[in-house]
């Protein structure tokens, strides 16, 4: 039945797409210059969209833009840029072939982006989204200087990292990297490794990231498996219109533990990284190449790493309506392996027998994207990506290795059917192959089709309906299919304030690692369970969003009911661990965030609070590895036009349950504590070319465990610079 549905879907798509491809752009051009209303300077990188069509563009370094192919008649153009108020202006096209529209944009105190692309696979105003979306903009990335992007994700309300695994509203817990309930994308393309479904955050250099969007809630109706708890979309920066070379570097150290017995090394615990890139445009072709290196002694024994990265991006614009781009990331990483501490007396020491343990990790991630505006109402996007990841363990008790390949190609068509309906249609296919001793050799194929209708019921009420079917097969196991619908509503109370509601199904196919792993790591013996089947969720959310020039605030109530939840389980007879569809679970909660400018002061305040009630319904207990309460605050002081200082605080309540080493109620061993982290970030811009930065994380040297027998990072001090010419 499911196969027949997909077949019909594919046939319809096959009929629609060739006709769509034949459509040619015709019409008129709109061009102009976008400037800052205060300084009068041209603005580069302003996003411009024409609502009611699929058309859009961005300004070049001289602030100039051009949109081609618009039909005669009145058109609204919407201009957006982080740090500026959203602007909308109208242009009336008569018989002229080119119409000029200049725009002045007004700076605002807040740095939140107004347009997001992740919720509906196209650019949508945040206040029009029926789902919760968090964003991390360029300014936050540059301020916080992360080595890898996962370091700053917990500054977002509702987002936590547990042992490198991302949790959105408590979805994932901790499974030692096997399986993820959050899908991670780079420029809209999935980048989870095909063997473990884990995310290797070092695959993309942070210097190449323009912004990050976080969809909080299921995204399977557009993105398929893994988007059970949410989606993280890492968006790389475009190639600059002018030639430039950027050199970035930073160095620092972890301070020694306050207690002498915890000190594990006499030499300083140094960290360092640098990245150099050059980008240029030669006519219609633009390119960027970059090279970087990162290294760290680690803050715990065997926590060292050395990493090289090579990255490149190329773009080609053969016409105003067609765009090609490709990118490649190569990462070569070697790092020590730390499974758990030696003992509570020496919590930063590794067990003696593991001291020589390390692993190597090589990754190649490439993508080729094509987009074409066939007419003002029709646009196509084609994305193809290939990801190869290979690791080899050199550990005292195992020499596990795995090499995985995944090739994914996707076609997406956007069609403005009428003034009220905007249709999105897509097909996706993935081929994967895995060669490994730890979970054996496997191959698989996934086919998927999706459809989305954005229906503007009234000028103020917008409904989004979506549906996606995934069909997958691993080796010779039975074909599995899954249909995931979603429905969202957004009602605009005013231009700045909206209400939203959504309901949707999420699904996650078990990873190869969860089904087939057979290994021993330190004291953990893991055995396979090939009969594992997918887990499902049904989620709803109601929320409200306000975004004005001095205040942004968002409130959401949410609930997700999971069935066939996959979790690691210890066999009481043998003590071995395997992944099982153990339970039904429910996570209900509140997510609140606000950002405002303090009146009369150059101070921006951000506050976020998330409460979750993570229940294991089968066992009537709480789900493991979740923090019930979390708070994030940031007080950002704009000292002058050149300097910014930000004081940030994170609180996470004590985990109520862990799975392997719970707190011993008699001896107090394996004690868990809440997390309190205070951090300071700042930068000073000496000139347009030179910026220096300072960061102190865990300022008060607070000690906690991230999960059992793994200490969190102590105080880290870093200084860095960025020089461009």
């Amino acid at each position: 039945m499911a196969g027949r549905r997909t077949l019909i879907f594919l046939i319809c798509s096959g009929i629609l797409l060739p006709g769509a491809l034949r459509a040619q752009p015709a019409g008129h051009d709109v061009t102009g210059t976008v400037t800052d209303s205060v300084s009068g300077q041209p603005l580069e990188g302003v996003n411009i969209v024409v609502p009611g069509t699929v058309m859009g563009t961005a300004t070049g370094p001289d602030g100039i833009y051009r949109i081609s192919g618009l039909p005669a008649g009145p058109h609204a153009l919407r201009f957006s840029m982080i740090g500026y108020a959203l602007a909308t202006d109208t242009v009336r096209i008569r018989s002229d072939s080119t119409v000029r529209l200049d725009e002045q944009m007004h700076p605002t105190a807040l740095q939140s982006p107004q347009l997001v692309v992740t919720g509906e696979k196209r650019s949508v105003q945040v206040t029009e989204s029926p789902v919760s979306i968090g964003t991390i903009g360029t300014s936050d990335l540059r301020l916080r200087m992360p080595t890898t992007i996962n370091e700053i994700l917990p500054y977002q309300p509702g987002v936590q990292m547990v042992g490198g695994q991302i949790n959105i509203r408590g979805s994932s817990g901790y499974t030692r990297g096997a399986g993820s309930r959050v899908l991670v994308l780079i420029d809209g393309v999935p980048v989870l490794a095909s063997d473990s479904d884990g995310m290797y955050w070092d695959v993309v250099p942070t210097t190449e990231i323009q912004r990050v969007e976080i969809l909080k809630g299921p995204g399977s109706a557009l993105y398929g498996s893994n988007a059970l708890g949410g989606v993280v979309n890492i968006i790389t920066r475009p190639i600059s219109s002018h030639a430039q070379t950027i050199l970035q570097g930073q160095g620092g150290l972890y301070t020694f533990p306050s207690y002498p017995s915890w000190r594990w090394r006499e030499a300083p615990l140094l960290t360092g990284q640098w990245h150099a890139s050059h980008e240029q445009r030669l006519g219609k072709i633009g390119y960027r190449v970059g090279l970087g290196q990162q290294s760290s002694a680690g803050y715990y024994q065997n926590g060292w790493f050395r990493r090289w990265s090579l990255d490149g991006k190329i773009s080609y614009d053969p016409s105003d309506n067609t765009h090609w781009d490709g990118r490649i990331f190569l990462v070569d990483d070697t790092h020590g392996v730390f499974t758990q501490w030696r003992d509570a007396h020496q919590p930063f020491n590794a067990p003696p027998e593991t001291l020589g343990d390390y692993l190597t990790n090589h990754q190649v991630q490439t993508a080729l994207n094509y987009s074409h505006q066939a007419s003002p109402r029709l646009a196509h996007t084609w994305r193809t990506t290939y990801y190869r990841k290979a690791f080899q363990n050199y550990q005292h008790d195992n020499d596990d290795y795995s090499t995985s390949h995944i090739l994914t190609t996707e076609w997406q068509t956007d069609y403005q059917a009428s003034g009220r309906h905007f249709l999105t249609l897509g097909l996706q296919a993935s081929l994967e192959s895995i060669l490994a001793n730890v979970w054996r050799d496997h191959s698989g194929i996934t086919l998927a089709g999706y459809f989305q209708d954005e229906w503007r019921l009234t000028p103020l009420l917008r409904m989004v309906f979506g549906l996606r079917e995934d069909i997958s097969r691993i080796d010779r196991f039975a074909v599995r299919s899954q249909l995931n619908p979603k429905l969202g509503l957004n009602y605009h109370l005013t231009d700045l304030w909206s209400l939203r509601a959504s309901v949707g199904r999420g699904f996650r196919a078990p990873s190869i690692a969860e089904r087939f792993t057979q290994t021993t790591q330190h004291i953990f013996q893991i055995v396979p369970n090939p009969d594992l089947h997918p887990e499902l969720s049904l989620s709803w959310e109601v929320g409200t969003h306000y975004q004005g020039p001095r205040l942004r605030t968002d409130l959401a109530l949410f609930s997700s009911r999971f069935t066939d939840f996959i979790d690691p389980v210890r066999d009481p007879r043998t003590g071995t661990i395997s992944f099982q569809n153990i339970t039904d679970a429910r996570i209900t909660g509140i997510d609140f965030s606000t950002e405002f400018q303090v009146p009369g002061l150059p101070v921006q305040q951000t506050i976020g609070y998330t409460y979750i009630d993570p229940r294991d319904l089968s066992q009537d207990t709480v789900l493991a590895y979740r923090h019930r309460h979390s708070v994030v605050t940031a007080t950002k002081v704009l000292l002058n036009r050149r300097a910014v200082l930000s004081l940030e605080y994170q609180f996470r309540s004590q985990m109520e349950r862990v799975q392997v080493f719970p707190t011993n109620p008699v001896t107090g061993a394996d004690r868990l504590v809440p997390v309190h982290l205070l951090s300071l970030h700042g930068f000073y811009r000496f000139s347009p070319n030179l910026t220096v930065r300072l960061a102190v994380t865990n300022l008060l040297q607070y000690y906690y465990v991230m999960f059992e027998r793994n200490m969190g990072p102590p105080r880290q001090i870093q200084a860095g610079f960025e020089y461009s010419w």
Partner: protein
Amino acid sequence: MKRSLIILVSTLFLAACEQGLQPVTGFQGTVYFPADSTGTVSWPDSLTGAVVVFVNAEALNLLNPSFSQLARNILGFTNPLDTSREDQPYFLEALPDKPYLAGVIASTVPIGSLLGLPADSLAVHPEYFHVLGLHHSPGGSLPFKFIYVDQEEITPGIDIHCDFNYRLSF
């Protein structure tokens, strides 16, 4: 302005008040396995690994010792010991001012996989385990010695000498 200052000061105050994890109390020592003149330990084929455990001595019936009784009163254990080494240090976290007994237990099934199971589960399978030795005073008349931990301190010298033919008897 006032509100922002209150938030900032409250944040700093909350963060500064919390101390987080601190050094623990407990005892430490060295486990010695019998080795030949070259320092090689010849483990019986039936044994797969060993850990140091400690038990609440107040709860034991010292006149009628048994593995089941020990297992039910286990308070904690180390990671599996390195079976290739003749001697190795260990540490166990324990609260002050209580009497404990410490010993080495070996297993005939993979011991790492059994860690974390409830004590009752261990107690019902005494056939899986062998006691290789208890901490005692060298030359003393008793086969065990109570261990006491002082406030805010680590008690050193809790060594355990193992014997693959050890028989549990008080």
